[in-house]
């Protein structure tokens, strides 16, 4: 009885973790296209959700170990029990929710590792954790990933600006928006093939431990399906807070920078996953945006925000480990402990959700980003409008006016005005 309850609990929490993983990471791929107006927020999250769904089915290679060697498992090591996995997942979910509330992009894998480490320390002692692997797989890559991505994105951005330097009247840089659609889609697809795997691995491992599957079994089709659906749903829900941080909180992103940043993210992630040096998608994508910000003359980087993000990366592992450890301690009481864990975990998640409702609604903040980004008329559009006499600015449209929804010029609402002159909603 108890093992069946445990397995059901783990599956439920694992799927919820998959869901938070999805909405935490939408921003990695879609923050810059939303910020530059390459895609509207709704289109962007839909594309990301579909690609995550497809990606989850594409990958046949299943992560063999959930913990990536951080916990000494198998022969001569500890046996990861379903209760430990359950406690670890609670740690990961709670930390993902906290960072989401603060709008901080933090690695979901690190949260999962952290939760499992905390649970393993409580369940099997400090010796069960290989801290050498923690250093080489988590701490150092957290420094190297954003640095590499920043250098790559800086170089790419400088190249892009140098090549497209304005020669005459025309500026062609708006064309980078079309490119962004492709590069950000690639990031989404890569995310789907990697991240849903982690949850599939966790659920399969639990089913094996509970005796419902034979050792070494492939994940059943229903597991793949529910994991794919959970991550896609999470992606579609969209972590608007994190999108806002990456799309505008770090630096103002122009189409040229957005394209360069996404191209750098894609190149770095693909290189890292195929040449044997794992880097976190979240950290690569944040680094790319900073690099692209440094690459445009006159761009400002909000170093305060960048500092908060980096701090969150280093706190992620210990913080989710602490939650995982407490959860494991409670779970060691047996069935009542598991129920307490589940109830408290659900209460914390619900509480964070309620807290998030008190601050400005998410949809609205995403809309602000969108409107702010797309309502800046390009000089060409201003000239076109001025020629037609439908824009009445004193300077003759030399300075691109910033339009707000609440102070639209009369021309923009005049009947028969083409759609692209209005700020998109």
């Amino acid at each position, binding site marked *: 009885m108890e093992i069946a309850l445990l397995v059901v609990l783990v599956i439920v929490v694992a799927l919820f973790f998959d869901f938070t993983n999805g909405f935490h990471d939408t921003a990695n791929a879609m923050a810059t296209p939303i910020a530059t107006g390459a895609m509207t927020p709704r289109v962007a999250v839909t594309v990301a959700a579909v690609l995550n769904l497809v990606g989850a089915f594409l990958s046949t290679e299943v992560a063999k170990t959930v913990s990536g060697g951080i916990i000494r498992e198998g022969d001569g090591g500890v046996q990861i029990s379903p209760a430990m996995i359950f406690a670890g997942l609670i740690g990961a979910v709670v930390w993902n929710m906290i960072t989401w509330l603060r709008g901080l992009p933090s690695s979901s894998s690190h949260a999962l590792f952290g939760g499992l480490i905390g649970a393993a320390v409580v369940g099997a002692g400090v010796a069960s954790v290989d801290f050498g692997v923690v250093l080489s797989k988590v701490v150092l890559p957290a420094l190297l990933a954003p640095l590499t991505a920043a250098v790559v994105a800086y170089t790419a*951005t400088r190249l*892009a600006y140098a090549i497209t330097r304005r020669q005459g009247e025309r500026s062609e840089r708006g064309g980078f928006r079309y490119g962004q659609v492709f590069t950000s889609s690639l990031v989404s697809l890569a995310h789907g093939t990697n991240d849903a795997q982690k949850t599939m691995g966790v659920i399969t491992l639990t089913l094996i431990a509970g005796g419902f599957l034979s050792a070494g079994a492939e994940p059943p089709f229903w597991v793949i399906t529910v994991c794919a659906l959970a991550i896609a749903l999470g992606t579609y829900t969209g972590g608007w807070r994190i999108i806002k941080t990456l799309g505008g909180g770090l630096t103002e992103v122009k189409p040229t920078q957005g394209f360069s940043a996404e191209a750098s993210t894609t*190149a770095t992630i693909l290189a890292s996953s195929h040449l044997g040096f794992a880097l976190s998608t979240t950290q690569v994508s944040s680094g790319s945006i900073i690099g692209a910000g440094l690459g445009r003359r006159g761009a400002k980087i909000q170093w305060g925000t960048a500092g908060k993000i980096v701090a969150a990366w280093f706190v992620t592992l210990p913080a989710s480990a602490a939650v995982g450890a407490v959860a494991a301690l409670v779970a060691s009481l047996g069935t009542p402990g598991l129920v307490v864990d589940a109830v408290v975990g659900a209460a914390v998640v619900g509480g964070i959700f309620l807290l998030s409702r008190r601050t400005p609604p998410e949809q609205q903040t995403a809309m602000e980003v969108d409107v702010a980004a797309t309502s800046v008329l390009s000089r060409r559009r201003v000239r076109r409008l001025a020629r037609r006499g439908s824009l009445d600015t004193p300077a003759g449209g030399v300075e691109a006016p910033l339009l707000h929804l609440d102070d639209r010029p009369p021309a923009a609402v005049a009947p028969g005005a083409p759609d692209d002159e209005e700020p998109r909603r």
Partner: protein
Amino acid sequence: MIDWSAFLLVALVALVAASALVSLYSVGLRLLATEPRTTPATAGAWACFGLCAVGVLAGIWLIVPALHG
């Protein structure tokens, strides 16, 4: 400990790949913006975009394990 040679390889490949893709796309955009527009420039621009498309397809090939075993 950390495998520095693997890391350097990843960093270099990423740098070259991203720079190549972004440069190609930029050159394409630049050629499209030439005034007056000439046929060779337009053809060159689309050749650049075509190469970018090849890069994107290569990315998909790398992402989907079924394609490269």
